[in-house]
C-alpha cells in the first residue's frame, strides 16, 4: 500500500488548492521557517482521524481553517484528501485506489469520505487498523514523538510496543 498524493485546501496556511505527489521512496520537504511544512504533516494526521487539538498544534478545531490575511478572507471550509495505491490489497477493500477525505466547515460540521462515499470517522480508522497507520501511530513521527520516546510520557514507549503487537 503506497501513498499516492495529498490534496489540501483551506487547511491552516494552505488557502490555495495544493497537490503533492508521493511517488518516490523518499520524499523531502524543505522551505523557510513558517512556510507550512509542519502544516502538511498536520494535514496528514488530521485526515487519518486525529482528534486531539494539541497534537495538531491548535487551541480549538476551528483554528485549522485558513484564518485569513490582510488580502484574503478566512476560508469557510478545510479539506484534505489523501490517496493511496491499494494494488497489494493491504486495505480491506476491492478498490485499487483509496481516497480518504476529511472536510471541516466553519459552522462546525464535518464530513468523512472513502472514495467519495460519505462515511464516519470509525470507518476511516477501521480501514487502517491492521496497517499500523493511525493518526497516533508510530508511522507518523514528528519531532515531538521522538521526544515522547525519550521522555516516556505516560508510558508512551509501552503504548508503541502495544500498538505494534
Amino acid at each position: 500500500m503506497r501513498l499516492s498524493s495529498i490534496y489540501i485546501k483551506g487547511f491552516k496556511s494552505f488557502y490555495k488548492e495544493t497537490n503533492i505527489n508521493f511517488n518516490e521512496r523518499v520524499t523531502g520537504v524543505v522551505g523557510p521557517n513558517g512556510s507550512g511544512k509542519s502544516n502538511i504533516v498536520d494535514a496528514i494526521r488530521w485526515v487519518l482521524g486525529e482528534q486531539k487539538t494539541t497534537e495538531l498544534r491548535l487551541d480549538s478545531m476551528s483554528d485549522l481553517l485558513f484564518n485569513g490575511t490582510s488580502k484574503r478572507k478566512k476560508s469557510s471550509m478545510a479539506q484534505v484528501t489523501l490517496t493511496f495505491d491499494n494494488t497489494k490489497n493491504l486495505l480491506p477493500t476491492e478498490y485499487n485506489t483509496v481516497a480518504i477525505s476529511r472536510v471541516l466547515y466553519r459552522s462546525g460540521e464535518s464530513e468523512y469520505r472513502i472514495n467519495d462515499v460519505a462515511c464516519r470517522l470509525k470507518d476511516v480508522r477501521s480501514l487502517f487498523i491492521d496497517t499500523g497507520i493511525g493518526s497516533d501511530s508510530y508511522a507518523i513521527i514528528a519531532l515531538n514523538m521522538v521526544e515522547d520516546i525519550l521522555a516516556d510520557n505516560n508510558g508512551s514507549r509501552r503504548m508503541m510496543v502495544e500498538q505494534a503487537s
Partner: protein
Amino acid sequence: ATTRFLTAFEEIREHFKTVFTTLFKEGDTCDLFLEEEDRPLDSKIKIVAKPKGKRPKSLSQLSGGEKTLTAIALLFSLYLYKPAPFCIFDEVDAPLDDANISKFNNIIREFSKNSQFIVVTHNKATMAAVDVLYGVFMQELGVSEVAQVDFRNYENLHTVDR
C-alpha cells in the same frame, strides 16, 4: 494479550540491539527491559545505552544527539517487527552531527525498500539524500504553496519567500 505483548516486546528488543549498533558503532550496545516484569502490561519500558568503553547509562545521561539517535533506533525496531507503510520525520535530524545525519539517511534508504518516507528537513545532506524534493514557500504573505525543486536550485526558494 500479555503473551502477545511479551512476544512482540522480545522481538522488538532483539531488533533494537541490532539497529542501535548499526546507528552507533561496533562495540556500542544497548538494552530494553520492563521495569516491572511481573506486570508487563502496565510496566514502563526502560532504555539503557552502553556505548563502547563507557559505563552503561540511562537515557538521561546521553547527549542530545545520542538520545535522538537512540529514539530513532527504537522506532526502526518497531518497524522491523511491524512495518508501517509510510513514515514522516519532521526535522528529526536537527540535533545530529554530520556523521550521524549520514547514518540516519542511510537507514532511511535501507527501510525505504519496504516503506515510504517523508522527511521534512533544513539539512543540506538530508536534502541531497532524498529521491524528490518539494519546496514549501509563501509567495504571497500567509499563503503556502508547494513546488518541486531541484536540490541545486534550493537557494532560490529563499528569495521567493521575500
